């Protein structure tokens, strides 16, 4: 059975939704971060792919495109010891606190 990413030929009656969503800032940043890490030779396209393709099926299908990128980014960076999960958790709380006090 093919992996969840390997979708060519899977039967579906779904029409193609041709509307484009407006990119949000975090999506630009996610894409740009991968670009900057590529420039620093800390991450390449194949690693990005591996991180995306390793996402469990249900999560893969429930995630948006850049949510998958983001998850892969975290996988690769934590694997390499560039960042730790705990550091990211802490930073998320810090950002939430900052947004809270600004709003």
């Amino acid at each position: 059975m093919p992996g969840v990413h390997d979708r060519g030929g899977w039967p579906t009656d779904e029409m193609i939704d041709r509307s484009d969503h407006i990119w949000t800032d975090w999506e630009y940043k996610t894409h740009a971060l991968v670009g900057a890490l590529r420039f620093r030779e800390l991450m390449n396209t194949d690693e990005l792919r591996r991180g995306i393709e390793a996402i469990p099926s249900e999560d893969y299908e429930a995630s948006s495109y850049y949510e998958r990128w983001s998850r892969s980014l975290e996988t690769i960076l934590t694997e390499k010891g560039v960042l730790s999960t705990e550091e990211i958790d802490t930073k998320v709380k810090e950002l939430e606190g900052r947004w809270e006090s600004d709003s």
Partner: protein
Amino acid sequence: MSEDHGHDHAEIGPEDEHPGLQWDVSLSERAKRSLAMHELLIEKGVVTNEEVETASNNLRRRTPADGAKVVAKAWVDPEFKQRLLDDARAAVYELGYSLAHDAELSVVENTEDVHHVVVCTLCSCYPSSLLGPPPDWYKSFAYRQRTVIEPRSVMREFGLELSQDIQVRVVDSSADQRYLVLPERPAGTDGLTEEQLADLVTRDSMIGVTNPLSPEGAPIS
């Protein structure tokens, strides 16, 4: 970081204008983790803010108008067209376009007998160095799943009804190999300049889900 609130509208092109980038509401957990990684990586000096900004600008630098110039040039210059089909990287470089170093590009030519359509069943590989980022539908499950088994029905949804006499070739991209369709030059365009021809070349015609526009600006089916 020069800003901690992300109101960096200045780096977003005019076509992306929209009221208020929402930061603190309706951000998914994943979005928050991306923003956290962004701030951490810059704080730690793993990447610089400038490098991220450069990458972000690069992402917006190319649009389908760039690919259209390449196609129009190929329509008016048979020698360029041959070079484009033989070695796309070198040919587009002549026009000032550099392809990402890790992905080869093949240009596939539509003729009166053969029509190509491009998909990436695995993800979203796309000739972004010439067209900019792919449209959402190119990355959708429906497009990735259906195009390789029912390309004519997919093209029909885009308004292109191909004669059964025309052979359809679906090309499936990968991270290492990307494709750009060289559409057939529309009839009745002999008197047009290269620039006017480029206006007929749509993004979708370079993916192959449609044909270019007619000189009257209508989609050719």
